């Protein structure tokens, strides 16, 4: 288990949230609630989901609201590491020059964000 897996996990989950909102023509908030409602209670899966929504939901809503994709969201939330190598890793095809600009913009949005800074958990 490594940090690379954090990044993959984040991009997959945020992609599913984004696509749920698209498919059901709903808000991101509703999409996250919907996803958590689908999970079983066993193994604290549903509870963990709501916990993560509480932790990261408002930032995800802000960034997806700015038409940023899962790659940008996960880099801004620091699930995808920022070191030289990994900062180029993204799943969705994106013109290279937009990547840096979009990432900087996302970080500015989070900086302005009122939510308490959280420590990225393993």
């Amino acid at each position, binding site marked *: 288990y490594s940090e690379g897996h954090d990044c993959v996990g984040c*991009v997959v989950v945020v992609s599913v949230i984004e696509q749920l909102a698209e498919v059901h023509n709903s808000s991101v908030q509703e999409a996250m609630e919907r*996803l958590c409602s689908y999970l079983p209670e066993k193994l604290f899966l549903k509870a963990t989901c709501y916990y993560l929504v509480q932790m990261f939901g408002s930032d995800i809503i802000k960034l997806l609201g700015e038409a940023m994709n899962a790659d940008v969201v996960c880099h801004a939330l620091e699930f995808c590491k920022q070191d030289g190598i990994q900062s180029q890793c993204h799943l969705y*095809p994106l013109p290279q020059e937009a990547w840096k600009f979009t990432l900087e913009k996302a970080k500015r949005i989070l900086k302005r964000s009122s939510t308490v800074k959280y420590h990225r958990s393993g």
Partner: protein
Amino acid sequence: SNICSLPFLAKICQKIELSVKKSVPFKDVDSDKHSVFPTLRGYHWRGRDCNDSDKTVYPGRRPDNWDVHQDSNCNGIWGIDPKDGIPYEKKFCEGSQPRGIILLGDSAGAHFHIPPEWLTASQMSLKSFFNLPSALTDELNWPQLSGVTGFLDSTSGIEEKSIYHRLRKRNHCNHRDYQSISRNGASSRNLKNFIESLSRNQALDQPAIVIYAMIGNDVCNGKTDPVPEMTTPEQMYSNVMQTLKHLNSQLPNGSHVILYGLPDGTFLWDSLHNQYHPLGQLNKDVTYAHFFSFLSCLQVSPCNGWMSSNKTLRTLTSQRAEQLSNTLKKIATTETFTNFNLFYMDFAFHEIIEEWQKRGGQPWQLIEPVDGFHPNEVASLLLADRVWKKIQTQWPQVLGRENPFNSQIEEVFGDQGGH
């Protein structure tokens, strides 16, 4: 954030961690390595215990006093026939040469599978994640549906059956005698860390058919340059000999070991690169080429050598795989052991692809959609079918005879207690 740091969970976490690390059942009251619990290395992975408070009772053992008083080997056959006073186990199984099936495998053998429903927003519903707890506690593997030790009926509708399924059909006395000693990331190098979890008593148990199928991780890793980390033929020779010596000390006499070669994995890129990944199907934006590149960039690719746009690297990886297969072949033709016969079989995936295309299928339909790497259930069962047929024609002694009492066993014991 670390749920295991909670005092009241610390102990159970410890037990689960040990179970995963040692690859032995989490719930095993009598510590005979067989369990009444499905996941956490339970009966999804090895024959279900029929008495979890008696360590002398477990699948695969020779019957205790012909099982007059209890089913000591959990094959569902025990007691005395009132008509003639002969114990059923003696009447139906004596001389039928019962044997177990044991897989020494990796994630492919354990049937690693992430259901695409978990990622497909357009079809997502309350039902989509019902199997998530079970899958997580089986490390995202589904050995109960795998090609070697699977005992559940296939979910893909294909008629081919697992090797265990066929062995049981051939001789009902083999009921519940299966073990999947497999692990995600397993290779010839690290098998020694969990081969102790194999349960077989050389004096008390039936012979076994052991399939050694480490089909990728000796050439697969996530490194940017995967070649230096690949197992060399010399290392392969040494690792496999170490494993075979261990098996010779543990397997009952009359066992058989089949060394399974490595595939030519270039079909992965060839079949998938321009197909859409499940995450890319809604907006037609993410192909497997993008997905492979993303995993490679993060250095978490399951196999950077084959899941790469670099043709030279793909070819190099297949060349090393072939060298390692030749090493296995060499061992099988030159080394002998007292307690088992040794055979080698090619992993001829192209034969499976041809068979599937004959049925109107496409090669990419044989690969797990979410990870784009593992053979899926259909491929596993087609491979099992090929292995079974090859053994039947080339080495029929490996499978033992057809038991003439199968129908009578069914009459008296029905499904023999199921799985």
